[in-house]
């Protein structure tokens, strides 16, 4: 790093007015033109840290201690008027949600012109128009007269985000803070927006702090990565430390490669993150992330850490320069030769090692090399009942319209019994619609469904109770899928009594069994959904389906609202259920998840089936350009 960093954050602490720290003791530096990826799961304080760089804390919180200097200017010490000038001009901000961060009542051009009027009042007339034109072009938006006359709601999500980026770069700042700017976007859009950001930073020599919950997103962009956990930066290192050049997460201590990440949390995060290039068992991080008021003394990760000792519970580890720019805040940083307590799955995740991993970890049965033909794969499914027979669920030439708009066009899909089937697509591809049609939501459907060779009614209301029970659907959002006024016992007991006519006591017993199957403690039965975390709620939702003793479980993006470490746990649960013989249809936008868990995959685009086949075969050698572009986008290349 150069002698004089562009951004220097020292001892930064942001606390709620009510007491607890959101961010505590953060030190960061950033060289001019450098891009830092700031990665953390929800509640880690990354957004709070990001806005604190601009001297802002949300209502209800305060910057309590520490300093932030940008280009030698002490941001936190500035008087309000100077601070206002510095915001936008010296350091600017791109907000997370483009749909709400643009004023709905003002035209795009007006908002851009306002930015110039505030920060570059010397510009007049044609110069203003020229600047705006240039900024739109640089952000990948159509220049010209028409575009600036539009209102935010007339743009797509990607375009809105590009407008925010144009706004941020317009006053030519030295530093841009981007707060998860692509979270709400599709992967391909996301890749294009990331490319724009990269280009703008390079061309204008602007440094950036890029906040994300996803290590995968920053790897195509950042020079350095800082990992946050419970309000602290636990590890900072060059990007290469986290990822090998081939973009596979890096194993620890492999000779000839840069030393891998050293903080146990970073290890856990990488082990839980799906990777589109290699099939690995995703490993959840045990335990829960602490909530704001209840962060433990000492190392916040200690309760979840396999290496924790007495000191971890009492003393907060200070960041330690492990080698050059690599800083770790851990009493027992990992490194050197793999220790005995390190499961080899985490160690050997490179291409050559995947074979061993598959054999060693039973959750995903041996499927053989992914390049093998589908017939071989099926043979390898061994003596699974139903293999090679008529598919358990068959959809033929399904079309669906939503009013006048046709959402699905002649889609056909077979679900093999006992298989983990992934349905992939971007938003608007019709993947959720197809899953809902199979589940019996009804609507304007044409086409045929069969179950076990027998015709299956399109509308759930026309299906016999037996079939309604056999096909179970799990909703995307665990916060809306459970009745907030019922206890978990009631939520689980109702379908048991409805379908099996069981007595109250028996229903209760079966509900407890189901909780056990989804790895929840029996005390959960007395709780209401509000008292549960997102991951726990999703487990309860799955348990509600399991008590019906289904043959098919249709899961609609059930992990997309969850953190990666929680997602890994849910996926682990699902693969376990599949081993018990359950057929799973898993709707997702995430090809990494597909690689990790799916046997078969179908790719949808614009309501049409684009590609279908064994998951590994499709991902290794996609037959369609569209699939290829999805995979490329998932790798962080565009």
């Amino acid at each position, binding site marked *: 790093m150069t002698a004089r960093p562009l951004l220097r954050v020292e001892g930064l602490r942001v606390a709620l007015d009510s007491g607890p720290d959101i961010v505590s003791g953060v030190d960061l530096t950033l060289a001019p033109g450098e891009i830092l990826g700031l990665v953390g799961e929800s509640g880690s304080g990354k957004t709070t840290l990001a*806005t604190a760089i601009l001297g*802002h804390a949300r*209502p209800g919180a305060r910057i309590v201690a520490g300093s932030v200097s940008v280009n030698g200017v002490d941001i936190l010490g500035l008087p309000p008027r100077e601070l*206002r*000038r*510095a*915001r*936008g*001009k010296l350091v*600017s*901000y791109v*907000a997370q*949600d483009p749909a*709400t*961060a*643009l*004023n*709905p*009542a*003002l035209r795009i051009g007006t908002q851009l012109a*306002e*930015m110039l009027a*505030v*920060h570059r009042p010397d510009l007049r007339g044609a110069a203003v128009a020229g600047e705006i034109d240039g900024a739109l072009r640089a952000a990948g938006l*159509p220049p010209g007269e*028409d575009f600036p*006359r*539009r209102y935010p*709601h*007339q743009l*797509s*999500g*990607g*375009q809105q985000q590009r407008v*925010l980026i144009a*706004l*941020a770069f317009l006053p030519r700042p030295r530093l841009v803070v981007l707060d998860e700017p692509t979270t*709400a*976007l*599709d992967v391909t*859009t996301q890749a*294009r927006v990331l490319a724009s950001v990269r280009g703008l930073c390079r061309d204008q020599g602007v440094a950036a702090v890029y906040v994300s919950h996803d290590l995968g997103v920053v790897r195509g962009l950042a020079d350095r990565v800082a990992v946050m956990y419970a309000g602290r930066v636990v590890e900072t290192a060059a990007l290469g430390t986290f990822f090998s050049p081939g973009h596979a997460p890096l194993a620890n201590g492999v000779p000839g490669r840069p030393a891998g990440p050293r903080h146990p949390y970073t290890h856990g995060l990488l082990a839980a993150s799906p990777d589109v290039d290699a099939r690995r068992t995703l490993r959840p991080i045990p335990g829960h992330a602490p909530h704001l008021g209840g962060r433990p003394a000492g190392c916040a990760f200690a309760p979840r850490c396999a290496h924790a000792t007495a000191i971890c519970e009492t003393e907060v580890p200070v960041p330690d320069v492990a080698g050059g720019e690599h800083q770790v805040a851990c009493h027992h940083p990992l490194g050197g030769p793999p220790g005995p307590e390190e499961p080899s799955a985490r160690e050997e995740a490179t291409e050559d090692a995947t074979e061993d991993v598959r054999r060693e970890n039973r959750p995903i049965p041996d499927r053989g090399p992914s390049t093998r033909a589908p017939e071989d794969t099926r043979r390898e499914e061994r003596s699974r009942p139903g293999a090679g027979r008529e598919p358990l669920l068959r959809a033929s030439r399904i079309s*669906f319209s*939503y*009013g006048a708009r046709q*959402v699905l066009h002649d889609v056909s899909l077979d679900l093999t019994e006992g298989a983990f089937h992934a349905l992939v697509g*971007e*938003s*608007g591809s*019709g993947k*959720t*619609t197809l*899953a*809902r049609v199979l589940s019996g*939501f*009804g*609507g*304007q*459907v044409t086409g045929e469904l069969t179950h076990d060779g027998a015709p299956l009614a399109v509308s759930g209301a026309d299906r016999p109770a037996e079939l309604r029970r056999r096909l179970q659907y799990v909703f995307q*959002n665990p916060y809306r899928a459970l009745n907030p006024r019922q206890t978990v016992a009631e939520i689980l007991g109702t379908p048991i009594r409805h379908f099996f006519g069981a007595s109250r006591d028996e229903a209760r017993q079966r509900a407890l069994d189901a909780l056990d199957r989804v790895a929840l403690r029996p005390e959960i039965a007395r709780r209401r959904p509000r008292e549960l975390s997102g991951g726990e709620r999703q487990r309860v939702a799955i348990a509600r389906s399991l008590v019906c003793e289904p043959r098919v479980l249709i899961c609609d993006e059930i992990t997309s609202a969850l953190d990666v470490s929680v997602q890994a746990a849910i996926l682990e649960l699902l693969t376990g259920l599949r081993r018990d013989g359950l057929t799973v249809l898993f709707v997702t936008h995430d090809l990494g998840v597909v690689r990790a868990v799916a046997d078969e995959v179908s790719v949808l685009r614009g309501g049409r089936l684009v590609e279908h086949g064994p998951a590994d075969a499709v991902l290794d050698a996609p037959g369609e350009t569209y699939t290829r572009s999805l995979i490329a986008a998932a790798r962080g290349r565009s």
Partner: protein
Amino acid sequence: MTVPTPAASPEKASGPQTASGAGPGLEGRTAPGAGPGPGGPTARAGWGRWLLRRMAYGVTAIWATSAVVFAATQALPSDPAMAILGRDATPESLARLRLELGLDRPLWQQYLTWLRGVLTGDLGRSLDSGTDVGTLLGGRLANSLALLVCALTVALALALALGVFAALRRGGPADRLVTSAAVSLQAVPGFVVAIALIILLATTVWPVFPAASLLEPGISPFAQPWYLVLPALTLVVAETPYLLRQVRSSVIDALESDYATAARLRGVPERRVIWRHALPNGLVPAVQATALTTSVLLGGSLVVEVAFSYPGLGGALNAAVGARDIPVIQAAALLLAGGVVVVNLVADLVTVLLTPRLRTGER
């Protein structure tokens, strides 16, 4: 009217795909734009068509109110002929008058006759005084409008000023004072306010204004403003608290919105954030709130007019109900209800015009 062209960018619209948005819905979910209420125009239909539909809806509503009014008055337990001729009338003269008034015809024919009269401006004759209802109510309507315009202007100005003031000082002592005063006043019935004001400003404590608003007939109420003060003040006290609280909460929403925060983080001066970003968005809900309170205001005006003996429409209606003067009741009730429908229509229109998302009718 701008007709937006579809996005030229290769990126597809990528709003969050919620389960309900793209998937088939269960039956029974309302289609967007099913009810032409103040939901605003939807889809790509454009707001021209929305306006037509909204107006048609308003017309049917007014027609329905006329039917309700007519039905209600026909059920009055009195005989108009008897009311006109008095109790001593002979059965023959009563029968003759009934025939003359068309009371022997079926109800629907009577209704159509009445409706035709209303549409041609002939509201019939008062049973009580025998004068033409149009002339009888015309002057009173003007008086009522004067009162309402005064009250609404002051109430709106007050609500906007205090609402924005409280929103800018949200959480502070000034805000708490304004808000709790509004909460308290909001609950108090209009006639209680009227009596309190009479005690305070007309009779007992500080008698400066007349307790009864005995307007000189034939002269505009604005020419004799001292009679307007107390009735208008009563309505202001009754109307302002609700409006104020609406303004306050929607301005706070706008001030704390993501786009206002984003503008601040872009270095936009706070004054500009307030005037350019927060207020234009924050004041739109006040339009709907104003329309919603019109009905309350009109109901309140009846009580206020009675309390201050103010010669307005409400007072006339009250007197007519007492005298069972059916044509007057019909005309006054129809005017009041029709007024509410029209005000709501205008408010919807203004809301749509002030909201680009509704105006351009997309997404």
